């Protein structure tokens, strides 16, 4: 443990050498073996009350990761819809100019007629380009461009800043949240997405490739002045963690040094919901990943972080009467 923290603090290593990470990750963790003092359940799950909105509105949150395929768009869709279900006005912005997907996840792909590019060109007004979700009317979607249209590279950041300013001063009142779905990489799309943001949600998976990218992106965000960065660890498999085959959430947190907004377990329902265009949080009956997204949205509202993570217990041994079907 000490060697890892030393490696992280030493300037020559951006991240510890991979071999060290692997050894640390696969080595038995003492703090996991040892029973931690019982944390209150409220540290992991909030329940039976409406979340209290903290901070100035609109809160402009960019959902980013650096690496592709870790679940940025899924997170944006589900957290956005959860916020809308909590009763907050949300505008979800797909800042991926060339490869937008947020409309697919929300099931709104057939209703996107205008994008921010049309607003800039004067083909429509901003309120006409916002697509309202019929399931949760307080959620609106804005795509920055159509897949084939070209936006000049240096212009995206300015345009998105204007859009957020315009939303701030719209007649129906500013939205509570503007969630910006950032494209993968750190190129022009990333620069466009982070330009108007005040806070960031970093999505990562518990593997070393995603962690390296996440660390770099965190550094860039901090250089840009975004200090409020929280982390969502996605696609966590508690069975693999129990077998020491996957880094635990606490390992990830130790490597990145970021506050935890949520832990999303691996769930086969995610791909099903993507296929249906029906976000997880609307599933009936609820799914475990949808529930985790809901809890992450809860903490985002309250600017709260996780103080405890859930560790899967050993399955109960079957008793004598299990032979009789009990």
């Amino acid at each position: 443990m000490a060697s890892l923290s030393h490696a992280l603090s030493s300037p020559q290593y951006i991240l510890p050498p991979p071999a060290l990470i692997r050894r640390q990750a696969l080595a038995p963790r003492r703090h996991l073996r040892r029973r931690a003092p019982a944390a209150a359940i409220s540290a992991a799950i909030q329940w039976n009350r409406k979340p209290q909105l903290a901070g100035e509105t609109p809160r402009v949150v960019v959902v980013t990761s650096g690496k592709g395929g870790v679940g940025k768009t899924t997170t944006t869709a589900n957290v956005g819809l959860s916020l809308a279900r909590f009763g907050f006005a949300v505008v979800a912005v797909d800042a991926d100019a060339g490869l937008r997907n947020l409309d697919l996840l929300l099931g709104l792909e057939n209703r996107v007629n205008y994008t921010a590019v049309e607003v800039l060109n004067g083909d429509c007004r901003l309120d006409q380009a916002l697509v309202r979700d019929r399931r949760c009317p307080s959620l609106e979607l804005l795509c920055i461009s159509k897949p084939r249209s070209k936006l000049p590279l240096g212009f995206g950041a300015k345009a998105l800043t204007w859009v957020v300013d315009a939303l701030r001063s719209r007649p129906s009142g500013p939205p509570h949240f503007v969630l910006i779905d950032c494209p993968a990489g750190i190129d022009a799309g990333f620069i466009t997405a982070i330009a108007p943001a005040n806070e960031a949600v970093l999505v990562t998976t518990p593997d070393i490739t995603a962690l390296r990218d996440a660390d770099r992106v965190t550094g860039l965000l901090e250089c840009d002045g975004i200090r409020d960065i929280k982390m969502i660890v996605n696609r966590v498999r508690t069975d693999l963690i129990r077998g020491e085959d996957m880094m635990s959430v606490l390992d990830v947190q130790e490597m990145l040094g970021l506050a935890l907004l949520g832990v999303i377990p691996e769930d086969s329902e995610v791909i099903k919901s993507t296929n249906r265009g029906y976000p997880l949080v609307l599933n009936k009956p609820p799914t475990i990943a949808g529930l985790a997204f809901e809890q992450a949205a809860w903490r985002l509202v309250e600017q709260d972080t996780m103080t405890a993570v859930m560790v899967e217990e050993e399955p109960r041994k079957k008793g004598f009467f299990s032979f009789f079907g009990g």
Partner: protein
Amino acid sequence: MTSMTKALSLLPFQSIFPQIISIRDVKGWNSKTLQSFRLDSRWLRRTRGDSRPLISVRASGDALDSSGDSERAGDGTPVEVEGNRLDLERKLGSFRELGNALPPAVLVIKRNSVSKFAIALYIAFAFLAIAARQIMLKKKNHHQGSVADLVRRGQLRSDRRGISKPMKYDDPFNNPFIKFGKGDSTIEMFGKVYRLASVTLTKEQQSVHQKRRSRAYQWKRPTIFLKEGDPIPPDVDPETVRWIPANHPFATTASDIDEDVAQHNVYQKHGVPFRVKAEHEALQRKLESLQSEQKLNEVALDLNNIRDFERPFKTSMKPQDPEPNSSANQQNGLLTLKSDEETGTSDGESFSGELKKY
């Protein structure tokens, strides 16, 4: 019963009698070992170790068939015994002796009445256990699709059995799949029990990580994008320049967008959008110019004027003679902004409604 057991005890020897017996033994075979083939304690004692004989009794229809087989001898190799009739009778006689020596199973049972009672008890217990298991499984299957299943699936709470109103999943503050443990340290979610492990990251560790990153990553957000080879403008920090390869297939640094107009468009809250308004005004100007040249009724009947307002959407027909000063070209000349021409068709109703105001 007794007759049947006697018949069973004799049956193997009678059926084997006319046939040739081949016995395989890893240790070899001779007639002495055959004679000692008895299930007595000495034999059992001998077979406890490694020298457990593998005995296979092979029957063949004709003794002459196996007469040509060469006798294989030696340690560890199977030996096929082929003997003359006398040897065979002698061996089978020893088998008969063995059969006579073994008492029938019924007699063995009769010998000890206590063990008989125990066996009966065991059999009865086994029947009872099987019956109980069947009843339990039947009971379990019988409840499939019942209200208990609804409770198990979370549709109903166990404490809400009498309430006919089903639980709504629309309520994000109430999830029936979550059950809290008694000690406030365990949660049962979706059938799995989780315990809580406290987060160990401290504020000091967070600040250490921030310092590490600030040393590792020196970055300024690029504000200007230039093609490789372009000169840097004088008032621009070189660190904020992002260089794009000149042959990049997708990225474009050329911007023909009037930024003031674009910003005004974004901030526009009411009224007709800029471009739609410009198109409308251009058409109106053209109409006015036509009206000034000719009378209105003539305009309505003049085919040339009608053709001016037609849009060439019938691509399958032969293209008509191109007109050098068509209205479409004039519109393109007026507007400098580029846009995807596929857009703007679906919300045409709202736009046409607003155009009627003018």
